């Protein structure tokens, strides 16, 4: 039997590819399985670590826990419905018609997406608090009504549903718009040739084809609404009720009832998993689609006389997540009284001065946020890149499991993850609580799935032969990944980096459980300021947050993200 002689001229180093890949798998497993295991331990055992179902019995027999469950269900369902009703027509108008200003609408939807929901909640407090809200003041002024007449009461179930819908509808928009963007124009041409008018075509061809995306989008919206912490925490307390997320958080009050918190997290987790499976079933494997298809550009429906009406409709819808709240924040930042309209006479920089020179937590929070944002984005992008590579090119056996693990965190609501990480890392051997590391782990876990999906889609556009050509000339897999694939993925990599960075900035539900005074981030600082009622400071910090976010987005504005790509520009032309 011939033995393998010494290796060929170019390489005789050890190929690090396989060990590196096994390492990444181990990291992934630690990120996900560890917190979930601790969660399970705490949920199913007593304080003495005896197995029991008592925690669940307590939970489900106490109206204090059942009420929030019901409330959350109502909020999530209604929000999802509203999101669909709003997002569907807007996506159709932007994607399939010749309505003017389509790029602007897409940009505004992006703005809605990057606005942190808790900031939107505070802004809406400024606008629609029953007595002091700007909109209510306007209403009373215009109608000369009684001083306690109220048009909008943001401190109510309706108010919460409204605010949550404002910042969740972009999720539905993205899915539906993507589906419509990639729908081959020929399908609608066929209908038109057979005599179908615009509305008939829309009804019988476009809508049925977009329906799976709509259903999938509504499931995502439901999940988002169910697991939000910031908006309910800010609006529900004054309104007088709890949601599941605020209830879980309240279980951390002294003395902490960790077993109950873990048990309360389980239904959220299970429901999320079930709904995600349903979504996958409906959508197949398409999550974030690759831009550009093999077909001709979509056939645009001519709106004729309706174009400006349509645009007005879109802009009015976007008043709610963007124009009005941003206005309220700017007003509060420069006014001595947060809900009084600023006038040239009362214009003051005092709030800004206070936040940036007197408030001692500002610098620390800004520093922590930027450090964590950058670190998470960088580590997350590399992690997602390698894992996407491994699963797309099927490098190791069980690469499918790796792909599953990379997407698994989507099933874990932020606050649940926070609880799991708290339970895992407040004990030896790894006491990460109190350091930035635990926040890094949390943010990484939360943002990895979408990063992975984006890069996976990007990988699909790169022909495997490009890497093979590199390998046959003597480069190892890792070298080829580095020299050939990564540069070609540059736009995708940068987009992913930005996506993660923005995701870190707006994250609150896990951070609120894991932070300590030295590891505070902007989102938590804003939440604390809301506790003490310092709305002007919130406005200033919120604007700072948005400025940073938009700077990051605009710095790479040619990137495929909600319509900023060349392909989408082509589509919109």
């Amino acid at each position, binding site marked *: 039997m011939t033995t393998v002689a010494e290796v060929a001229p170019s390489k005789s180093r050890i190929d690090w590819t396989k060990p590196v890949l096994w390492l990444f798998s181990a990291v992934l497993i630690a990120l996900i399985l560890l917190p979930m295991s601790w969660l399970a331990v705490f949920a199913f055992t007593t304080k003495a670590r005896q197995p029991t179902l008592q925690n669940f019995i307590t939970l489900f027999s106490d109206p204090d826990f059942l009420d929030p469950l019901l409330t959350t269900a109502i909020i999530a369902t209604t929000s999802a419905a509203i999101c669909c009703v709003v997002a569907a027509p807007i996506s159709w108008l932007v994607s399939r018609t010749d309505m003017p200003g389509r790029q602007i609408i897409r940009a505004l939807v992006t703005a809605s997406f990057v606005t942190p929901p808790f900031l939107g909640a505070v802004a809406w407090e400024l606008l629609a608090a029953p007595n002091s809200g700007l909109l209510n003041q306007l209403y009373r002024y215009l109608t000369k009504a009684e001083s306690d007449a109220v048009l909008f009461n943001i401190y109510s179930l309706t108010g919460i549903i409204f605010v949550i819908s404002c910042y969740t509808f972009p999720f539905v928009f993205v899915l539906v718009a993507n589906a419509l963007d990639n729908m081959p124009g020929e399908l609608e041409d066929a209908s038109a040739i057979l005599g179908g008018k615009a509305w008939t075509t829309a009804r019988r061809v476009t809508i049925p084809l977009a329906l799976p995306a709509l259903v999938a989008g509504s499931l995502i919206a439901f999940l988002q609404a169910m697991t939000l912490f910031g908006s309910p925490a800010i609006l529900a307390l004054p309104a007088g009720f709890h949601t599941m997320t605020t209830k879980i958080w309240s279980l951390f009050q002294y003395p902490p009832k960790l077993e109950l918190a873990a048990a309360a997290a389980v239904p959220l987790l299970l429901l999320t998993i079930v709904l995600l499976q349903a979504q996958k079933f409906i959508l197949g494997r398409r999550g974030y689609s690759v831009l550009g298809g093999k077909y001709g550009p979509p056939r645009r429906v001519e709106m004729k006389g309706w174009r400006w009406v349509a645009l007005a409709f879109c802009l009015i819808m976007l008043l709610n997540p963007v124009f009005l709240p941003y206005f309220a924040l700017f007003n509060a930042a420069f006014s001595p009284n947060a809900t009084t309209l600023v006038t040239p006479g009362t214009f003051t920089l005092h709030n800004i001065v206070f936040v940036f020179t007197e408030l*001692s937590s500002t610098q620390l929070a800004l520093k922590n946020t930027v450090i964590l944002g950058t670190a998470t984005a960088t580590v997350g992008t590399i992690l997602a890149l390698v894992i996407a590579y491994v699963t797309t090119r099927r490098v190791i056996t069980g690469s499918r499991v790796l792909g599953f693990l990379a997407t698994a965190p989507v099933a874990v609501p932020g606050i649940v993850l926070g609880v799991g990480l708290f339970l895992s890392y407040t004990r030896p051997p790894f006491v990460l609580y109190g350091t930035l590391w635990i926040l890094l782990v949390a943010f990484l876990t939360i943002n990895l799935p979408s990063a992975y999906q984006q890069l996976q889609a990007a990988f699909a556009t790169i022909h495997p032969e490009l890497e093979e050509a590199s390998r046959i000339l003597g480069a190892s897999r890792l070298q080829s990944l580095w020299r050939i694939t990564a540069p070609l993925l540059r736009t995708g990599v940068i987009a992913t980096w930005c996506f993660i960075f923005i995701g870190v900035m707006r994250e609150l539900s896990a951070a609120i459980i894991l932070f300590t005074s030295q590891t505070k981030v902007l989102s938590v600082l804003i939440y604390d300021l809301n506790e003490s*009622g310092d709305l002007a400071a919130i406005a200033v910090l919120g604007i700072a947050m948005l400025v940073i976010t938009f700077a990051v987005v605009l710095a790479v504005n040619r990137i495929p993200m909600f319509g900023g790509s060349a392909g989408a520009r082509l589509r919109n032309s």
Partner: protein
Amino acid sequence: MKQKLSRRDLLKGSAALGLTAISASVKAAAPEPSAITPALVEAAKKEGKVVFYSSMDLPVGEKLGKAFEAAYPGITMQIERSGSERLFQRVDQEFASNIRAADVINTSDASHTIPWKKNGWLAAFVPEDVARHFPEQYRDPDGMFALTRVYLSSIAYNTALVKAEDAPKSFADLLDPKWAGKMVKGHPAYSGTIMTATFQMVREFGWEYYEKLAKQRVMQVQSSTDPPKKLALGERAVMADGNEYNVVLLKEAGQPVEPVYPTEGAPTISGPTAIFASAPHPNAARLFQAWLHTRETQQFFTDFTAQYSVHAQVQSKPGRRKITDIKLMKEDAAGVEAMAEEIKTRYARLFRV
């Protein structure tokens, strides 16, 4: 141990402020008083930073911090502001994971010092000013905390929305149906002030009072610094509890708010400050604690923050109502400690959050 009730009149007047300090099983005597020495200042500057957990109103706290930084350049002050009950929970969490982040803590729930002393978490340190100028009943026999500030939780109303003659004058008035949907109050699970106030109220009026108040559709906020602000915004017309000093400060700033001192008496809140034994910047902590209780700083509290001081040399602010002129409810830190759990649970049940 012993509950000291003052037999002497207070230096300033007749109302009795009773502060019970129950020392724990540790029967150590208080250490010798310490002055602010150049050596201490040097050591503090080397450490360069002091981390202060406090529930003081944010601008007030930050102003204090800036004053300290101005007095001792080279030492930065980092203030972690949160409701006292939340701070208590955070401290508990941090200590459980061996995290030593905090140097000094000021809490508006005086009962917190009881478990902290029991756990041995506090460091004994007696500033010179405290030893010399603070009346005996306001000092901890073990020297583990000092009473930094005293204030009240009161009623207040928005003068643009409520005429003075219609304004409520007592806690009983708040139960009038005409105030339904028009009130705002804090929450004892977050705010030490509200926890203390609720205890005193329950002691005086029983839980029936809160059962009735809960039916008034009161807007629930977290911190006791928030109701005055909500009043100034015009969001609600009346505050059922909250920091009286915030109302006074807002009024001085031209906001349309007016405090009301309830006829039954206003709950009294004292805010002790303590140093943690595990403080990461022990010398800076000591310097700050000492500085906090000097006449100048205590005068600052009185002059600029509308709070009250027990330092013997501090002059009351002209035009400011003297604390001895206000009818107060009596404090009972041990009572609060015993009842805290029950207060949180029952309150949550009544007010549904």
